[in-house]
């Protein structure tokens, strides 16, 4: 059983936009996308439950993404592949999914696990695009996952309850944060992470022409990215002992109560 987990490094703290490039400012500290920790955890559990197999972490991103990758190795993943190339910067969904699909193609895993979304761009569709490129079935919003005789069965969280969906392997799944409680890396894991195989690949090494990645390979153009408008006529209620009454009054006035 070979499981690939796609992970991303996201900027830590509040999001900032670089006005010049209209991209997310990635200059500060980064961390493993919180949703991806659930994907890693689920992959480790599946591997450990089956008693054999391999969990390989795959990421497309800047060299600094190695920090996020190290955390996944410390958690227990077996090895990592990072596709890092200046020409891939500024990739949109189309370009990123193309690069990622190529990297995954090379791994030919039985299962690809994604976190449901990234905390920086909030796209929540990359898994669908990658599954489409790989021509594999995809189960999204997975809150419970089981593998049985060559099939994956996912309990899918919806607004109205649960759907249970089964698909043949190889498949792609996107998990939610309800699926498990990700472990903390152990000290032994942290000390051992450095010794695990970590590959960094360029686009050329993956056989990807530069014009299929980055802005050149993107089908969307970011026209404007703006900070949210200030909340104009916000009213501030200082508590002089009657704040609750004044808030109720305000809500009544706006017909919200």
């Amino acid at each position, binding site marked *: 059983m070979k499981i690939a987990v796609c992970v991303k490094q996201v900027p830590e703290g509040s999001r900032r936009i670089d006005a010049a490039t209209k991209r997310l400012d990635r200059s500060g500290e980064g961390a493993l996308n919180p949703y991806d920790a659930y994907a890693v955890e689920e992959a480790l559990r599946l591997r450990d439950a089956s008693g054999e197999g391999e969990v390989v972490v795959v990421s497309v991103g800047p060299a600094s993404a190695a920090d996020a990758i190290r955390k996944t190795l410390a958690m227990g993943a077996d090895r990592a592949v990072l596709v890092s190339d200046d020409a891939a910067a500024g990739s949109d969904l189309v370009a990123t999914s193309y690069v990622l699909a190529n990297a995954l193609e090379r791994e030919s895993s039985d299962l690809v696990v994604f976190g449901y979304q990234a905390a920086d761009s909030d796209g929540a569709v990359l898994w669908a695009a990658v599954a489409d490129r790989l021509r594999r079935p995809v189960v999204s919003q997975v809150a419970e996952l089981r593998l049985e005789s060559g099939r994956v069965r996912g309990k899918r969280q919806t607004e109205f309850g649960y759907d249970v969906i089964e698909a043949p392997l190889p498949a792609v799944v996107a998990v939610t944060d309800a699926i498990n409680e990700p472990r903390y890396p152990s*000290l032994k894991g942290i*000390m051992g992470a450095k010794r695990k195989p970590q590959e960094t690949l360029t686009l050329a090494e993956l056989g990807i022409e530069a014009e299929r990645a980055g802005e050149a390979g993107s089908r969307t153009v970011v026209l404007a990215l703006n900070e949210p408008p200030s909340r104009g006529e916000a009213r501030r209620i200082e508590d002089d002992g009657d704040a609750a009454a004044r808030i109720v009054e305000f809500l009544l006035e706006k017909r919200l109560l």
Partner: protein
Amino acid sequence: MNLDLSQEHELVRSTVREFAVERVAPVAEELDRESRFPYELVAELAELGLMGMPIPEEYGGAGTDTLSYAIAVEELTRIDSSVAITVAAHTSLGTMPIYLFGTEAQKREWLPRLASGRNLAAFGLTEPEAGSDAGATRTRAEARDGSWVINGSKIFITNAGTDISACVTITALTGEGEISNLIVSNGTPGYGISQPMHKLGWHASDTRELSFEHCAVPEGNLLGERGRGYQQFLEILDGGRISVAAMGVGLAQGAYDLAFAYAQERRQFGRPISKFQAVQFKLADMATEIEAGRALVYKAAWLKDQGRPFAREAAMAKLYTGELSNRAANWALQIHGGYGYMDEYAISRLYRDQKILEIGEGTNEVQRMVIARHLGL
């Protein structure tokens, strides 16, 4: 010169910080209020390998360097001192003597369960009549029929009386002017452990008085060479000071973080109090001193990891961060005003937990004596 931490060190920091914020912070106030020993947290810390960080893997530890250990203790103290001292006293005072001075058989017997965190160990040096003057121990051990028979008492001993405490290493007179270290297992007849002592802070940490009445331990429980007890405990304290110094930085950082956030939320005279220069200057001073204190602690840890002499720097780090944490806790509470005096505000706990950092493992005065000796005075 390179002041960057390695990637492992960064990952130790982010992991322990996450653990402290997610697992310790939510229960810290309750543990303090109920003076309850944090068994569940110790089990989780053990799972992560945090109960035996600097002990090599072959003995069940995590095999990290001193700097990683200091960073972990710092990050725990930033959130809660009781949990941090439970780890630090177990590691530096309880387990280290056996690792440093034990025979191979003693290491095999004790280290796997201690370094894995299944059991806790304590170090009993202080006595009612032997505090700063720790060499004035009155506890006696006589060799009799293949045993050491111990009579005497110890006071203020951390981690000795929990449900998972396995042993205490004590200093005792084994002859005239001859001090040796002996391991005493919990449950040995004649070894009495008091009820938990009531104290100003560290409420969730286990502190006990110990008594030994004709308490016989096997001959083989002598730790290291007979008569080397004095040098051994000095060496233990040298190393232990690095972790207590790390607690000083962690506590100061925790106090600063609370004050920094509070100063921006609290409004008086129509603006956040962080807009007043008097408040800003306190925060600026705290941030500056924390930076200096952290550099001292990491330098001492780094020297130890390089196998170089570190005792002078460790005493300096302990002294500086003990006093720094006092100023930081005081200022941080001041910035909180009356709210900081209330139990619901974490700063009140940090304020109470701080004082011991200027007393335990050598008072400020004792650190100055140690430093002066290193200066050749």
